[in-house]
């Protein structure tokens, strides 16, 4: 084994990936003064609510919220956090598409964001399957046909509560948290996408509304 200092190597690599100034700037371009820039932050806020309510539900076990009014309220927070998470994420997605936010070498930022959306759907799906009520029963018996049709039904068995619950509370939150981290680093590293050049489209500023 060489005498290379791994700690130093990791520090130098980290500073190459992103500096503290890039990660937490105190100034932003004037064009960022638009409400659409809040959609991403609200998505992140909903994710924090999801994790907090999810940890509480996991601590008391999957049966708790069916029998306890407090548990049911925590489940309601989890349920509405999911709705808010997707609501703000879709608004964020639409606005980033409308801004062609992949310009200027930001393709990877888009790709990671799109993967986040896909993984979030998978996380929500396993969450629905973990409810242990009529809804989860029906989703599992209906969804199994699509999984079986593509040959993954035995490896991703929707009828196996233990497997779906494990994936939902352990695997998917970790994957989503990791992707959010990468997404945020890419956003901060590349900076916010500048406005499109207004030399096409055939309409003047006055039409913008």
């Amino acid at each position: 084994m060489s005498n290379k200092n791994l700690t130093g190597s990791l520090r130098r690599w980290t500073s190459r990936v992103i500096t503290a100034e890039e990660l937490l700037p105190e100034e932003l371009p004037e064009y960022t003064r638009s409400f659409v820039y809040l959609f991403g932050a609200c998505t992140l806020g909903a994710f924090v609510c999801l994790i907090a309510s999810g940890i509480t539900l996991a601590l008391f076990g999957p049966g708790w919220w069916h029998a306890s009014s407090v548990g049911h309220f925590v489940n309601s927070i989890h349920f509405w956090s999911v709705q808010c998470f997707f609501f703000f994420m879709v608004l964020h997605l639409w606005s980033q598409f409308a801004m062609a936010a992949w310009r200027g070498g930001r393709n990877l930022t888009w790709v990671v964001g799109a993967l986040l959306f896909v993984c979030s759907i998978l996380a929500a799906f396993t969450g629905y399957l973990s409810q242990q009520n009529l809804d989860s029963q029906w989703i599992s018996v209906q969804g199994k046909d699509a999984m079986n049709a593509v040959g993954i039904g035995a490896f991703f068995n929707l009828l196996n509560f233990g497997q779906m619950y494990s994936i939902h509370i352990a695997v998917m939150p970790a994957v989503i948290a990791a992707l959010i981290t990468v997404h945020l680093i890419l956003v901060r590293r590349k900076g916010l996408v500048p406005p499109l050049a207004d030399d096409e489209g055939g309409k003047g500023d006055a039409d913008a509304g």
Partner: protein
Amino acid sequence: MRAELPSDTRQPRMKPYDLVREALLALGFVLVLVLVLASVFSSPDAPALTIRGYATARPVSFLQTALRELDGTGTIADYGPPYNHGTGSLQSIGPISPQRWAGVRIPVNTAQDFVLGPLTDIAPLQPALQTALSQFQQASTTQRASWEAAYGKALAANAGQSASPAAPAAAGPVGVMLPALLHIAQLGGLQGLMLSSSTHRSITNDTLPLLFLSGPALTAQAQHYRLLSTQWGMMNETGNYPGAVWLWLYTLWYQVPPFSSSHSGDLMIMGVMGLLTLGFILTPWIPGVNRLPRTLRIYRLIWRDWYRQ
């Protein structure tokens, strides 16, 4: 392929901004929003259907389901991979059949796993059942089919009734076995026997009970809550709650031909959605799609202050 959309080259002025404050404010806003929604609207929780509940509420339907599992005419008995070598639910597009390629990975023998296995487990407690089981297992296939048909006829005559019919003499041992199965199901024992079966032993794996309930038992409940695939069920929720709205595109395909009418609709839809998902991820590189923002001109609304300058 055309180059990417050009960015404005004017140098923007930098303005003071507090990202951490923005994140905390967003968190506070969402937290309040979620607490209000949870307090006012609560959340759905339609109770799970149990085999005990099904057997108690609809004994004739339960017996008909059990009979289909015994005589091999149920959906799961001839389903195909990953449960067995049947072809009833085997999907393919021409020579492409991932379902067949994956093979039988969760073997399910409906007669054994749903009926004969649980009955064998409880037979030591009931000498008459032990005799009936022995008689059934030693009989020829033709004889078994004859008994099953006779019992099925009696059940059909009482379909929709709240009480199970008396077994006709022509039903032979089947007339003893299935009422015994109904009895143990009504006492709550059948689900536990399935979960502890020798081939699927796992108390957190509901595969067997759910496959048993996947026929008329759950379908009737799902229809009541508008959860069937033909009712846009995948994005519906029990009660008046928003469901998985983000699955709207996936659900849409199940409403239109050829997907809605094809025996391999699931495979076709998964293929289409796989391609669309790939396209979504690769948007920056797809000609035409990556220039749509210029056509839509929504960016001018987002950056309206910038363009006014």
